[in-house]
């Protein structure tokens, strides 16, 4: 628990639809890391996690669920009280299940989140000087609806589905309100900033690029440096948008010339079975392993047991897997799909190799062969140090302190959450 006798600073409320829970232990780890990074800037940090609970699609049934939920959670005879729990990361979390109806637009879901959060807040609003909403819809919307009039609102946008939100007129209207009210809107990549600035040119001045924190210092560095690129690994959703079919095809080509090559595909998704069948057709089924997704803390076991992360995604707003691989001291072969060319800016040829986004598997094969020739030029220690400087908890906390307007006190009070707690 925090030291209550300390000199009071400001209070921060964070609102997010993603945060690790028992059901979704991997969700929102970036929100968790970023909130933990700034915990030391404040007297108290409360995080409100409005988690989607998908309910019946039928409107009548959905209405029944909504009425029963309201009766249980609000009014004089409410039966369920939401209590905050203290976390190891050094802040308070209130988990708020939010019944949502499938096949609706983001505006409807945003209003569902609003209805769920309203009875939870004492006095019907965030008692915080700064409210940080993660993703414009829903976190930004909730910050806008429940922040005190004098509170500073900061919104971080990192939704890969931003385009879908802005394509729905009602949802876009809500987003426009968020943009009007927010004091600062943070994008996790320049690509996302350009997209948002293009949609809301009148607010360009308040849109900044500030990444989420990544606890790179805590990432275990591989015990032995990579000396050859025989064991490839892909980590992530097994889907066409991630370029996994091209990866399998490319592996089939490269493996013909290099008998030592192996590939592990770590993750789940709709293409697991079709791609497993494809590896058999390519004659490499015995050299490709499909492994189900694992908790984040186990990913490094897999990274350390392989030589090269291949990440051929078509689009990424940030590209966390690439950062994790470089943070663990592993070379990467990654597409210029948005986030990675920023996260690895200046590190092409140092952390690994960037290749073009393409439907042609030969691009991956060519990249692999070039990287194999450039192995001597790789400098994993420098790459890791660069990433810590950009995305480490201290670096991001200092940037957020400026955004929050708690600059000087931030410098004085910054400390890892676990030390303070």
């Amino acid at each position, binding site marked *: 628990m925090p030291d209550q006798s300390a000199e009071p600073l400001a209070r921060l409320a964070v609102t997010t639809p*993603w945060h690790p*829970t*028992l*059901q979704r*232990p*991997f*969700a*929102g*780890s*970036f929100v968790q890391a970023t909130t933990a990074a700034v915990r030391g800037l404040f007297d108290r940090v409360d995080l409100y996690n409005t988690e989607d*609970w*998908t*309910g*019946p699609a*039928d409107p*009548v*049934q959905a209405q*029944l*669920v909504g009425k*029963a*939920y309201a*009766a*249980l959670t609000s009014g004089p005879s409410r*039966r*369920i009280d939401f209590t905050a729990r203290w976390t190891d990361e050094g802040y308070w979390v209130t*988990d708020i*299940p939010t*019944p*949502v109806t499938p096949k609706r637009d983001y505006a409807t879901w945003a209003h569902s989140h609003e209805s769920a959060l309203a009875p939870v807040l004492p006095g019907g609003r965030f008692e915080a000087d700064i409210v940080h909403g993660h993703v414009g819809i829903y976190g930004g919307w909730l910050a806008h609806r429940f922040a005190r009039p004098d509170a500073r609102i900061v919104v971080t946008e*990192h939704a*890969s*589905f931003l385009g879908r939100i802005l394509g729905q007129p009602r949802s876009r209207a809500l987003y426009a309100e968020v943009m009007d009210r927010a004091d600062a809107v943070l994008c*996790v990549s320049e690509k996302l900033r350009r997209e948002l600035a293009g949609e809301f040119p009148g607010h360009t001045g308040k849109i900044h690029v500030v990444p989420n924190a990544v606890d790179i210092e805590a990432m275990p560095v591989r015990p032995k440096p990579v000396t050859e690129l025989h064991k490839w690994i892909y*980590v*992530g*959703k097994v889907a066409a948008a*991630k370029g996994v079919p091209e990866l399998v095809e490319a592996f089939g080509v490269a493996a013909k010339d290099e008998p030592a090559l*192996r590939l*592990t595909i*770590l*993750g*789940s*998704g709709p293409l*697991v079975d079709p791609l497993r069948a494809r590896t058999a057709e390519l004659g490499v089924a015995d050299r490709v*392993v499909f*492994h*189900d*997704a*694992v908790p*984040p803390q*186990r*990913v490094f*076991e*897999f990274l350390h*047991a*392989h030589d090269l992360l291949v990440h051929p995604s078509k689009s990424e*707003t*940030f*590209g966390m*897997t690439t950062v994790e691989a470089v943070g663990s001291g592993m070379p990467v072969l990654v597409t210029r799909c948005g986030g990675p060319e920023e996260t690895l800016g200046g590190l092409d040829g140092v952390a690994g190799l960037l290749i073009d986004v393409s439907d042609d598997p030969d691009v991956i094969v060519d990249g692999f062969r070039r990287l194999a020739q450039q192995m001597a030029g790789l400098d994993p220690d420098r790459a890791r140090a660069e990433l810590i400087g950009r995305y480490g908890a201290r670096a991001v906390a200092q940037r957020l302190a400026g955004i929050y307007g708690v600059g000087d006190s931030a410098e004085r009070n910054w400390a890892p959450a676990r030390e303070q707690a």
Partner: protein
Amino acid sequence: MSVLLLAIGTTRARAVCGSADFLLARGVDVGLVAVDAESWQREGLDRRVTLYTLQAGEERHPLNRLGRVVRGVSAAAYNKVFSKLYRLLRPYVMWRVTRAQVVRQVDWSAVEQLVICDSHAIPIGWHLAKRHPGLTVGFELDRTPYADREPVATPTATTAMDSTPATAPTPAPAPASPTATGIDIDA
């Protein structure tokens, strides 16, 4: 003493199984009100959890018997009219079945918490909360009362959380799990 979990679907199976394991490891009896047993066995629910299933009762309900008659007469009438009507009435039917079966079977004097585990279970949870005004009701298990108890080793505890292989990361194909996503999430 016991905790009663209520889950109509398996969308939040990981949380349900995790809560059950936590309680069983601390010597707390666990009951689960669910539609059927098979899907929960597939999800890895510990076999020591007492299951109160609604499927048989639902099938015996007069509305369902009427449905079978309608289907016998005209499959089109069943598909186009009856099934749509039944979808609207199903929450009511499920509550009637719960009331007729589960409410009588459970020793409510021993139940410390009722945990509503998914969205579809909320209406039944509300009915049960109304019938038992003194009962603690929540959407998540309140672990505080059991936090001080030392977990004991359990020979059969298998959970959804443990479904990923504990072996080293070398080639070991594992069954795909629709709930085990989360790597490389940008959103």
